[in-house]
Structure formats: structure tokens, C-alpha cells
């Protein structure tokens, strides 16, 4: 069964590697702080922001609670407007639709709008295996594609690279003559490279930010306009849309088109908001295919605590505020969905026993929950998934230690004895110099911090003495 791809070592090891890259740390700290502060400004302008969040949460909860009926409504609306709807239970099914459409149009390449759903199903790799070239047209996605790298941020895929690195990459690949690392010159080089691709493309591929069940309308928001090129110039358009992307009614866009741009880029409105419903004669693609992608979502929906994660609108505000993400970057999460939302979404979409290190990749500081535009209680779901991880993988040494501690805490006399024992062990350890090379979790602590000392007199000892 093909599911959301995950790769690399467990989070702690992958993070360690990233933490040792000072350039990456600096790039991330600067970029996330900029977006974070811009978001705070844009959100601060809206007096009714909290009501908007609550409304967004409510609409998403209603949608997820009645998803099968909403999906059928969407299908009817799309078909009525001349589109074709495909149901893709898994990644390979969705990729097959793109392949079929491309072949039917005699295309050997497709132009792509930035899309997480297509990254999730590894569409580019699947198309390449069938001899078809996928051209990323979002500037940051293009940077990742040219560099042979994966995206490290939901919204800003090349956030781990600075402009000097990007200019060097372009010189090696699409723009040998580029002699500047000014943003305008880099963008101009990309424009020249992409313009040709737009003009010859027969098939465009997009994701969807929203799909309106009532009208069959797909909505994509973006900053560059390259997405609109892909959705309007080619003769055929395939949109791959996760089944959780639905909104019941057209009027619901009012809420989400306020929540998303302000949360994502700190803008009042995205520079390009494209909306299309089926096909329109003489305007845009003559053929429109909507692929409704499950790929683990139905299983996530069945998780009563976790299902809330499917309300995510991929704004990435939780990444930019997360003290873990801001230091490790996105690659450490080993998934197209990094950061706090990825730490819950990846294990939910992959299923029990999978990506078990991710729910632990958080200090549960709750900063993510405070900025989430649809009020997903990420810390709560992290704890829930930790419970699931322990219940399915049953870590032996840790489990024994935790059960032992629970037994100690179950009786105050046993607990007081353990305190005295720890104090004695600590004194022996200090005398023998053992404390500098401790085993297991204590070593992890004491690599960068002094170990706390068991007090010469615990509080309960002091209290007992005081009463006498």
C-alpha cells in the first residue's frame, strides 16, 4: 500500500545533523522571524480575528463531520460544469490520472503549480519513472527541483537557502550568465527559464487550497502568478485535491481568504487568488480533471482526537513560531509536512506504528496552538499520538523505567525512600567522578547542562522536621 512518503532517520538523529549546520540555522532564524513578525502585524489589524478563527474552526469541523455527502455534492457540481472527477484512494491512483491525461494530450512534460498534495504523492518521481517531465514553476519549488532537494517548509520550500546560495545554484543550472545575487535578478533568470515552459505546455497540474462543494470551484492562492499561468495556458488541467480541502459553500471563502493570507505570508490578500469552476468555453483549459485524494485521510478521520488535524489549511504559521522547527528546519521531519502540523499529520496519514519519533519532536510549548488560524489543538494531538506510539511500539527500556517510576509515585513512602536513595547514589557518584559519564537519558541531559541535585533536605523532610 502506498501512503504519504516518509524518509530519513528518526527525528532526533536527523535534527542533530541540521543543528550542526550554522548556515542553515542562520537562514532559518532570520527567515522565520521575518514571516512570524509580518504575520503578527497582519493579524493584529483584524479586530475580530478570534471570531474569524472560531468561524474557520467551525466550518472545517462541520465539513469533516459530513465529508462523504460534501464530496458527492462537489462531484456533482464539478461534473455539471464540464469537469471530470476521479477518486484516488492512494498516491499511485492520483499519479495515474495525471499520466493518462498527459498521454491523451501527447505531452512529455507538465507544468506544475506549487502543491503539497503532489509532493505528498511524489508525483514528479512517479511521472519521471513513466518518462514524463514535471516542471516546477513556483520559484522556491524550482530552486528545490534544480538543487535536487526536498522542500523544507510548507509555504517557503527553499527557506533553508539564502540568496547567495540560490544565485550560485542558478549559475550552475538555468542561468550561467547570472552575475548578481540581487533578488530581482534571480527572479528575472527564473522568469526567462519558465516563460518558455508555460508557452509550450499542454498539461498543467495543480493542487487546491480550497474546493467549494456548492459550486464545484477550486481555489488556489499564490504570490507569483506562475500558478495562474499553469491553470490557464495549457489545454488540460489536472487538480489534485486532498478530500479534506472542501468548504461547504461559496460564502465560506470569505472566512478562509482572510485567515489564510494573513496567517501564511502576513498579507491582507495574496497577490494571486485564482478560482475556477469546471471548464469555460473559450477561456482557459478545455479539459479539467479533479482528483480527490484520500491517501490515508479516511483513516486519520477515524481517529477521534487526531481528525482535527485535517482542518489544516497549510498556512505554516505553526512552523514559523515553533522553537523546534526554527532550529532544525523542515528536512529533519522526513516528510513533506514538517513542523508542528507535520508532527501530527505525518503519523496520522501513515497510520499506527509509523513516524513515531515525530510526536515527540515538540517541547509542548503550545506556541503553535496560539497561532493556528483554525484553532487545531496541536499539543493535545501530539500527546494523543505519543500515547498511540507507546501503545503500538512498546519501547522496552523506557517502558520499564516509566512503569517503575509510576510504582514509586504510587506510594508516598516508596517515593520518599527513592528520594533518599537517589541522594545517596548522587553522593557516591560525585565522590567517584562517575557523574561526568552517566548512562542513557542522564548522559543526554548532562552533555549541555549540570544535573540537578537531590536536595540535602527534601521539602517533605523539612516539613516533617518543622512539625516536631
Amino acid at each position, binding site marked *: 500500500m502506498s501512503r504519504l512518503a516518509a524518509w530519513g532517520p528518526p527525528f532526533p538523529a536527523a535534527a542533530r545533523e541540521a543543528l550542526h549546520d550554522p548556515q542553515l540555522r542562520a537562514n532559518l532564524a532570520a527567515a522565520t522571524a521575518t514571516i512570524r513578525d509580518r504575520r503578527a502585524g497582519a493579524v493584529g489589524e483584524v479586530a475580530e480575528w478570534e471570531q474569524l478563527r472560531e468561524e474557520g474552526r467551525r466550518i472545517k469541523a462541520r465539513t469533516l463531520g459530513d465529508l462523504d455527502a460534501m464530496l458527492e455534492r462537489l462531484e456533482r457540481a464539478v461534473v455539471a460544469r464540464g469537469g471530470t472527477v476521479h477518486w484516488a484512494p492512494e498516491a499511485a491512483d492520483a499519479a495515474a490520472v495525471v499520466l493518462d491525461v498527459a498521454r491523451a494530450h501527447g505531452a512529455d512534460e507538465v507544468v506544475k503549480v506549487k502543491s503539497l498534495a503532489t509532493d505528498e504523492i511524489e508525483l514528479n518521481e512517479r511521472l519521471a519513472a513513466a518518462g514524463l517531465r514535471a516542471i516546477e514553476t513556483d520559484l522556491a519549488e524550482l530552486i528545490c527541483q534544480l538543487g535536487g532537494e526536498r522542500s523544507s517548509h510548507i509555504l517557503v520550500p527553499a527557506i533553508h537557502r539564502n540568496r547567495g546560495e540560490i544565485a550560485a545554484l542558478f549559475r550552475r543550472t538555468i542561468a550561467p550568465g547570472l552575475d548578481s545575487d540581487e533578488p530581482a535578478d534571480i527572479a528575472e533568470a527564473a522568469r526567462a527559464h519558465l516563460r518558455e515552459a508555460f508557452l509550450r505546455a499542454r498539461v498543467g497540474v495543480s493542487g487546491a487550497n480550497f474546493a467549494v462543494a456548492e459550486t464545484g470551484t477550486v481555489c488556489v492562492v499564490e504570490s507569483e502568478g506562475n500558478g495562474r499561468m499553469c491553470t490557464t495556458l495549457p489545454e488540460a488541467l489536472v487538480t489534485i485535491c486532498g478530500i479534506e480541502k472542501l468548504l461547504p459553500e461559496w460564502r465560506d471563502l470569505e472566512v478562509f481568504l482572510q485567515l489564510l493570507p494573513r496567517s501564511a505570508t502576513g498579507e491582507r490578500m495574496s497577490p494571486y487568488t485564482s478560482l475556477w469552476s469546471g471548464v469555460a468555453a473559450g477561456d482557459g483549459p478545455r479539459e479539467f480533471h479533479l482528483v480527490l485524494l484520500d491517501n490515508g485521510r479516511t483513516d486519520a478521520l477515524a481517529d477521534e482526537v487526531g481528525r482535527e488535524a485535517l482542518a489544516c489549511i497549510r498556512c505554516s504559521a505553526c512552523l514559523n513560531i515553533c522553537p*523546534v522547527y526554527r*532550529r532544525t528546519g523542515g528536512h529533519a521531519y522526513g516528510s513533506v509536512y514538517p513542523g508542528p502540523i507535520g508532527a501530527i499529520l505525518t503519523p496520522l496519514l501513515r497510520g499506527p506504528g509509523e513516524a513515531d519519533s515525530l510526536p515527540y519532536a515538540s517541547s509542548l510549548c503550545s506556541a503553535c496552538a496560539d497561532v493556528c488560524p483554525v484553532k487545531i489543538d496541536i499539543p493535545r494531538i501530539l500527546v*494523543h499520538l505519543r500515547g498511540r506510539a507507546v501503545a503500538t511500539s512498546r519501547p522496552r527500556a523506557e517502558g520499564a523505567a516509566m512503569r517503575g517510576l509510576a510504582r514509586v*509515585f504510587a506510594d508516598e513512602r516508596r*517515593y520518599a525512600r527513592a528520594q533518599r536513595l537517589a541522594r545517596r547514589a548522587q553522593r557516591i557518584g560525585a565522590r567517584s567522578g562517575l557523574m561526568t559519564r552517566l548512562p542513557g537519558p542522564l548522559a543526554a541531559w548532562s552533555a549541555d547542562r549540570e544535573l540537578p541535585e537531590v536536595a540535602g533536605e527534601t521539602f517533605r523532610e523539612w516539613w516533617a522536621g518543622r512539625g516536631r
Partner: protein
Amino acid sequence: MRIALLVTCLADTVMPQAARATVAVLERLGHEVVFPEAQTCCGQMHLNTGYLPEAAGLARRTAEVFADHEVIVAPSASCVGTIRHQYAQLAEETGDEDLARAAAELAPRVFELSELLVGVLGVTDVGAVMEARVAYHPTCHSLRVLRVGDGPRRLLEAVCGVEVVPFEDEEECCGFGGTFAVKNADTSAAMLADKMDRVRASGADVLCALDASCLMQIGGGLRRRGGGPRTAHLAEILASGPA
């Protein structure tokens, strides 16, 4: 008022001075403090590491030990947060209806120290004296789980001789996070390093917080590096008197 102290296993064992100071402040204000000796741990570590049945046992036990106490105080935002906000989830996850009832009954009676002083007792000036430049680190669970607001800062500003000094990114996590600090030790240490740099740049003599856990993390880091401010729980500053 008769106030029961929920000392927390951490303060009891490694930071008893914070618990003793909590008792001292409340007694100085004329309240009676009692210490239910059967208490051990609220179960936070087990819960946040995913050991839900074990955590539920400790939660039930905590609710039982404090069942007859009308006002309970803890010198820890994260333990109060666990009881007030997470016990309900724990009851739901483990399908324990008795715990759900006990948790709902316990939650409104438990207060973090600054909440009790400012919110319940209506006090901001506790008569403390201390000459120090204090950097106040708002711990994640006090700031975003309990939402204690400006109470701690007002308490500090009312201490004779204390100057509260700001530092960069105050509201960012120190990297402790319970078992996160050992499971993801490198990431935790990277978060800690930035926190220490910022605290030191403030020129503070004392770093203050509401949680023994975060003080253990930041204090442990500062002691390893050498130099920088000393750490003190809010209660310790509030309990200090003229030299």
C-alpha cells in the same frame, strides 16, 4: 485562608527552597498552609511521554489526596496546567469516567502561586525586599496554558529593589519540555543556548520563572557555561526580606 500545598515532585526533590518560600510568603500574608503528605507526582511526565494508563493512575491518586482541600497552590505552572487542562483529556483517552468527574471537581480548586496571590487573594505587594535586576522568563505553560497574564510581573515589580529587565524573544520556550530534553537533547540544547544568550545580554542578576523544571534547564545550562545570572523561583524572590 487554609491553603493546601501541592509541592510537585520536582520542587520537593531538587528545588525545595521554592516550596519553602511558597509556604513563607503565604504564612507572612496570614494564611495557614497545610501539606497533604500522601502526595507524590501529578503524572505530567507519564502523560506527556505517552504513558497514559500510568499517568491516569497518578492523576486519580492526586485527585484523591486533594479531595478535601478547598484551595490548593502549586509553585509550578506546568503541574497546574496538567491538572486543569490535561486530566480531562487523559480521562477521555483512557475511558475513565471516574477520573473525568474527579478532574472536573479538582480543576477549579488548583492555582499556580501567582494566580493565587493576584487573582484569588488580590495581593501584588507581598512586602518583599530584594536588590536585583530580574529577567522574568514567562514559561510556556504559565503563558499559553494557564494564561497567567501580567500577574507575575506585577508581583515582581512590587518587590522593593527589584528592577525587571526585558530580553529578546522572552516568550520562546527554553527547550525543557520534560522528556523532550533527553529524547531530543540536541534540539533542546540548541533552544537553551539561545535562551541563555538572550538572558545574559539583558544584564540581569537573577533569572526568574514560575516553574522549577524550566529553572532546572536554564540554571543547569548557565552553571555548565559558568557566569550569567543565578536562577530563582518567583516564590523565592517574594519570600526575600531585608538583609
